[in-house]
Structure formats: structure tokens, C-alpha cells
């Protein structure tokens, strides 16, 4: 018996920077054997805008709009991360009302961000309808934000010393109406439509399994880390604002559909976090006090003493950290941002090498990490 002389060849495939499933301008060069990926190599930097250098040329209040443009899908958390860092550096007290407003807008923003992650993940897997459902509901949140600060994406709403505008009764009623509309009816609808769909589970379970120790060693944070079963959430472990006074659970991956830390787990953590966020918003709504919405002095100018500080908050994609060095002037000497997507995407090449990954799985893995390229490149 002679073996047929069939020769196979490896193929170098360039995915991106213009590709619908890389969620932005992100490029992966993959070496494939048929549909199977042997090796992948990520390339970033197509969206670099020198945030850190820009921050050195503007005063403390002017830096806030730059932070919006890092992770443009959850700008509130970026604003907040920068604000708490400057507040600590300058020793500014934030009014109680502002803290409640911050929790509300940040959690609503987290829901909006997770909705987009849910929708685009459905799109990556090939289901188009969940995307439009998600946008329908995200639109309600954006309308609330638009009413609040005139912006739909780059809010610059959370500022040093508090927030930019006070929250009116009308907006509070809007937020309450959204919470009643959204949880649990709409999230259950999403679960029915996509989360527990057989094809969806077979596409995501056991795909891109990320062991907890590997995730930690790569600095993965946020829902992607929690998907691997690690109970780590800065809102609970290193509370900032008023999170220590609020009740919420930290959902983690359970591996119920496949292995612990697969794409389905990471996806499901986001779906469950949305319920927790709505829970947090409801508590903040119930407890919001009267009072000023911003520190009067900090509203005009901030001039911290010489020194340095590092503060971090839990963004929608992980830990958003700001390291700020002050030389005593009203302009920061150095601002270094820790962007969660940057660390999260660094594990991609490792994940594709861990197991047999097909081209369709690569799309599923990138989607489950939920990166925002504006933040990766800053």
C-alpha cells in the first residue's frame, strides 16, 4: 500500500487591522494549517494617541476628557479612576451626594458596556439579532446620560471633587424606570435568546480555556479574570467611593457548560454582573442624600502638593489604574494609566497556543476578552 502523496502547507493569514471581529484596529497574524491555528501574533498600536504625554501638558482638570477617550465604552469609570487619584493626591473631600451619583452612573455605564460586549459577542458567534436587542437597551442608558451631561460616549462627567452636573429628580426617575424595565425581564430575555442557546454553548464552552494561575500571571483583570473563577473585584477587595456600604455579589465563572475559564464563563460573568450593577444602582437610588454635587474649590482648579500616588477602580474590563506624579504645580508631572484591555489582550497569543484553536474560535476568544482598542493603545 502506498501512501498518497498529498502535501499540506501552512498558511500565513493576516487578520486585521481592518477586520470586523477584532473590535477595532487590532491585527493578529496567524499561522494556520487549514482551519487550525498553529500560532498567532498580536500587533497593537494602530490607535496610539499619546495620552500620557498629552496629560503632561494640561492642568489637572483638563486631563479628564483625555481619559474618556481611553475606554470610550465605559468613560465614567475612567473619569472616576483619574478623579480618585487626583483627589487622593490633593486631599479633596468628595460630597456624599456626588459619591452616590458616581456609583449610579458608573454602574449604568458598566451595564451599557456589558450590553455592547454581549451584542458584539453574539455578532462574533454569528447571531445578529442579540446585537440589535443590546443596542435597543443600551440606547436607553445613553439617553439618560445625554440628559445628564449632554454626551453619549465621552462624558467627562465624573470630575475631580465630584461630578459636573447635579442629577435632577427627572433623571433619577428615568434611572429607576430603566432598572424596572431592564432587570430581570430583559436580561432573562437575553439568556433565553443567546446564553443558553445550544449552538452558542457549543461554540463557546471549552474554547479558549484560561487557567486562573495563567490569567493572574498575565495580569488579566475584570470579568475575564473572574471568568476563570478568581474572586477579585476592587469594588469589594479595595473599596473606593461608597462601595463598602453597598451590597452586591461578585459573580465568577463556574465552568458549568465546559471547563472553568472558557469563553462561555467569561461571557456569563458579564451577564451576571449586569444584574449586580442594577442592584447597586437601586441601592444608590434609595440612599441618595441631598447636598452639593461637587467640591467648590476643586470645581475651579486643583493644585496638589508635590508627591505621587496610584489609585485604581474596577472598570467594565478590569482594573483602571492611574499613577500620578505631582511637582506642586497645577499641571501633572507624569500620568501613567494602567489599561485593563492592554493586559487582557496580552494573553491572546498564549491562549491560541494552549489548545487546538480554529479561526472561528480565535474570533470567539477575542470577543470573550472584550477589548477596547482605544484603551489598549491609549
Amino acid at each position: 500500500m502506498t501512501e498518497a502523496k498529498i502535501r499540506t502547507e501552512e498558511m500565513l493569514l493576516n487578520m486585521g487591522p481592518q477586520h470586523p471581529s477584532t473590535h477595532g484596529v487590532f491585527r493578529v497574524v496567524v499561522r494556520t494549517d487549514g482551519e487550525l491555528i498553529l500560532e498567532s501574533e498580536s500587533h497593537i498600536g494602530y490607535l496610539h494617541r499619546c495620552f500620557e504625554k498629552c496629560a503632561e501638558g494640561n492642568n489637572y482638570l483638563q486631563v479628564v476628557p483625555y481619559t474618556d477617550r481611553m475606554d470610550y465604552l465605559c468613560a465614567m469609570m475612567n473619569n472616576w479612576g483619574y478623579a480618585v487619584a487626583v483627589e487622593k493626591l490633593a486631599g479633596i473631600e468628595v460630597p456624599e451626594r456626588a459619591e452616590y451619583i458616581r456609583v449610579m452612573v458608573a454602574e449604568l455605564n458598566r451595564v451599557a458596556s456589558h450590553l455592547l460586549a454581549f451584542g458584539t459577542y453574539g455578532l462574533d458567534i454569528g447571531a445578529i439579532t442579540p446585537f440589535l436587542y443590546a443596542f435597543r437597551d443600551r440606547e436607553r442608558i445613553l439617553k439618560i446620560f445625554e440628559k445628564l451631561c449632554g454626551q453619549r460616549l465621552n462624558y467627562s462627567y465624573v470630575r475631580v471633587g465630584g461630578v459636573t452636573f447635579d442629577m435632577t429628580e427627572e433623571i433619577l426617575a428615568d434611572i429607576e424606570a430603566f432598572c424596572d424595565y431592564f432587570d430581570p425581564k430583559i436580561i432573562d430575555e437575553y439568556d433565553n435568546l443567546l446564553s443558553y442557546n445550544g449552538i452558542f454553548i457549543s461554540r463557546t464552552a471549552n474554547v479558549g480555556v484560561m487557567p486562573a494561575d495563567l490569567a493572574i500571571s498575565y495580569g488579566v483583570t475584570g470579568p475575564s479574570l473572574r471568568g476563570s473563577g478568581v474572586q477579585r473585584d476592587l469594588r469589594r477587595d479595595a473599596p473606593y467611593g461608597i462601595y463598602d456600604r453597598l451590597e452586591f455579589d461578585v459573580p465568577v465563572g463556574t465552568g458549568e457548560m465546559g471547563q472553568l475559564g472558557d469563553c462561555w464563563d467569561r461571557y456569563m460573568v458579564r451577564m451576571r454582573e449586569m444584574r449586580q450593577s442594577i442592584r447597586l444602582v437601586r441601592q444608590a437610588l434609595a440612599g441618595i442624600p441631598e447636598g452639593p454635587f461637587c467640591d467648590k474649590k476643586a470645581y475651579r482648579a486643583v493644585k496638589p502638593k508635590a508627591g505621587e500616588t496610584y489609585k485604581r477602580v474596577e472598570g467594565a474590563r478590569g482594573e483602571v489604574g492611574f499613577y500620578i506624579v505631582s511637582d506642586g504645580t497645577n499641571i501633572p508631572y507624569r500620568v501613567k494609566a494602567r489599561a485593563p484591555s492592554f493586559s487582557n489582550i496580552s494573553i491572546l497569543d498564549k491562549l491560541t497556543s494552549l489548545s487546538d484553536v480554529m479561526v472561528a474560535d480565535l474570533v470567539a476568544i477575542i470577543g470573550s476578552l472584550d477589548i477596547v482598542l482605544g484603551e489598549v493603545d491609549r
Partner: protein
Amino acid sequence: MNLFAFTTIFAQAGKGLGEFAGDYSSKWDAGTYDGGLVFAGIIKWLVTTWGVPEWVPLSSILNGVLEASVFPEIGALLITIGLVFGFVNIFAIGAVWSERKVSAHMQCRLGPMEVGPHGILQTVADGLKLLAKEDIIPRLADKPLFALAPAIVFAGVLMRFVPLPFGDQLIASDLDLGLFFIAAVGAVEVLGVIMAGWSSNNKWSLFGTIRTATQMVSYEIPIGLAFITVIICSGSFSLMEIVNQQGGSLNASDGYVYGGWIWHWNLFRNPFMLVLSITYFIASLAECKRSPFDLPEAESELVSGFHTEYTGMRFALFFLAEYAAMYLVAAVAVVIFLGGWWSGIYPLDALGLGPEATTLTKTLGLLIKVGVFLSKAFALVFVQMWVRWTLPRIRLDQMMYVCWKVLLPISLVCLIGSCLWELASGGASVFGFGIVVE
């Protein structure tokens, strides 16, 4: 001379050209046309009753042509092609529009609203836009293959319309091997797709092409098994015959089929047929590359698969072929499982049949049957759209798994089960081991 003799001769060349033509000529002249000759019948009726009116310019020449004295065969061929092609185009325009509307209303949107009432002319506008687009052939593409591929894909789909009825007697050509022809010509489409993807010289197109080839070749097997089962049960390859059998049994006294009830459909012929119809539907989704089997075009992975590099009218041909194939697989499902043009309600079906039928009841019956057939097919097309806008896409290995380890064994069991059932119940069988009833 029958205007449609030519197409039938062309398709049944084995029968002997002269004999066949003579046979049809005599039938035409005697007015006893049957079996797919209603197109011709209508035209003859129009011509002999009215002809082209006197006030039409060149009416005498036109009448001469219509009286079948000049080139009747060519004329018949062109009219047949025109009717089928026209139907495919109009269906595609309507289907694209309704697909957009269906998806929109499933997704809390309105869909096209600007061009015409409820955007009904949007597809026409898009088609015109595609016609006006620049025809780009990539510099490194294999030009002859690249140019030929869309035509082959489209022809592969269009040819399958030849033995497909649109209603009672309304058929381009009632081939003796109709179902076999549909299965066989379906393979031509794969060739066109491979040509398109390979000649584009694009790695993403190549991925799409290989996926398409894998998928379409694999899924032809469950479809083929469904066909074989139906053929064994019906004892005929002809689509007309398969449908006629689902209209109840022959009336013993006058030899007419009067239509029957819904349980006369092949779907309810035996329990295996019910299962088989589902496997056929799933496999047909894969065959026309619809979600959840839209891997060849997976827009989130391959952007658009094998036709990434195509523009303008060449792209439109792929698009047309896709929608034509959607209707085709649905219509075949209607023919082989859902009773074709029989509505399943006996009084409705019997209208216009039998020796007592008048011209009025005949016309009415024909129109009802066309309506029933098309609405069944459109309902299945709607289900295809419904599935597409609900389900995610499966992966290549899962696609193969579904075909070889799920659909194929189920189809085989249904094939054997149906055979045994037919044996036990004494139904007719193509292999001659059954007892022919009545």
C-alpha cells in the same frame, strides 16, 4: 406544433428526437397536451382565440411567429427561460426585501422605509446601483475563471428550476429523472464557488471556498438520502408524479386524481418521513449556505467568504443565486414532503378536476393550486429567514459532525424504515418489491 416541445426534447434527448417531436406535434394538434404543457396550452389558447390584435403594429408578422410557422422551438425555449428567469428575479427582489423586513421586525427596527411604500422598491434601487457599479477584477486574479464563476453558480441554480413545478401542469419540463436532475445539477454550483474563491487569489476567499466545498458536498448526502426515500415510496423520479401521488389515490371509475386530504402528503406517509423532512430541511439550510450553516460567508470571520472580491453585477449574480437556491430547496421540500400544490382540503383540491370541469372551474382550480404551492414554498422560505435571524453560526468541525454523525445515520434509518414500512403496508416501490395498489 407544441411551443414547448423543444425544451422537453432537449431534456429528454435519449428518447429519440424525431419520434418525440412527432409525438408532441400530434398531441398539440389534437389538443390533448398533458404533463407540463400548460404554459404551451395557455399560449396556444391565447393565439387561437385572439391572436395579436389588428391594431398592433406588425400584427401579421407576430401572428405568423405565434402560429408556430417560423422558429417555434427556439421561441418555446426562450419563453420558458424567460418565465423561469423572470420568476427567479422577481422572487429574489421580493425575498431580499422581505428578508430585510423580517429581520428588521425581529430586531425592533423598521428596515427599509424610504424607497416606495415601506421600502418595497429598495431592492430594485440596490439592483440598479449594483448594475451601475464598476466591475473590478483584482490584478492578481485568474481572470477567465474569475469572470466565469458567477455565471456557473447562477446557471447551476437556474438549471435546477427546469423540472420544478409551480403548480398543477405548470412546469418548464417534466423530466422523468427530475429529482435526480436536481440533485445532480446542484453539484455544478459547488464548482462555480470553488472557481470563484480560488481565482480571487485571496486567502479569506480561499477559506470560504474550502468551507463551501466541504459543506455542500457533505450535505448533498443527507439530501440525496431524503430524495431516495421519497423516490422509493413514490416509485417515480418525476416531480409531477410525486406530487400527483400525494393528492390521494386514483379514482378507480374514471381514472382521475381528485385530490385528497392532508394525510395523503408524503410527510404523513409513515413516521420516518416526518423525521426525514426535518433532516432534509436542516440539510437544505446547509445546501444553500443559510444560517446556522453560513460558514462560507461568515461575515464575522471571513467577511464574506468566496465572493469577497466580487463587485457590481457579478456580485449580484451570487446574491441572486443564493436567493434562488432558497426558493428552490423550499419548493423541492414542498414537492417531496408537503404535498406540492395540493392544499390538503379535498373540496378545494377537487375543484377543476375530472370530466365535469368547466373552463371557469379549471382556471380557478389552477390558480388555487399555484397559490397553494407558492404559499407553501414562501412559508418555508420564511422559516429559513426566521432561523437565520435567531441562531448563531456553528463551527466547521461541528458542521461536519452534524452532517456525518447526526443527519446521515438518521437519514439512513429513515430510508430503511420507510422501505420496511412500504413493504409491510404494501405500498408501491421503485425496486418492484412492493405491491402496486389500484
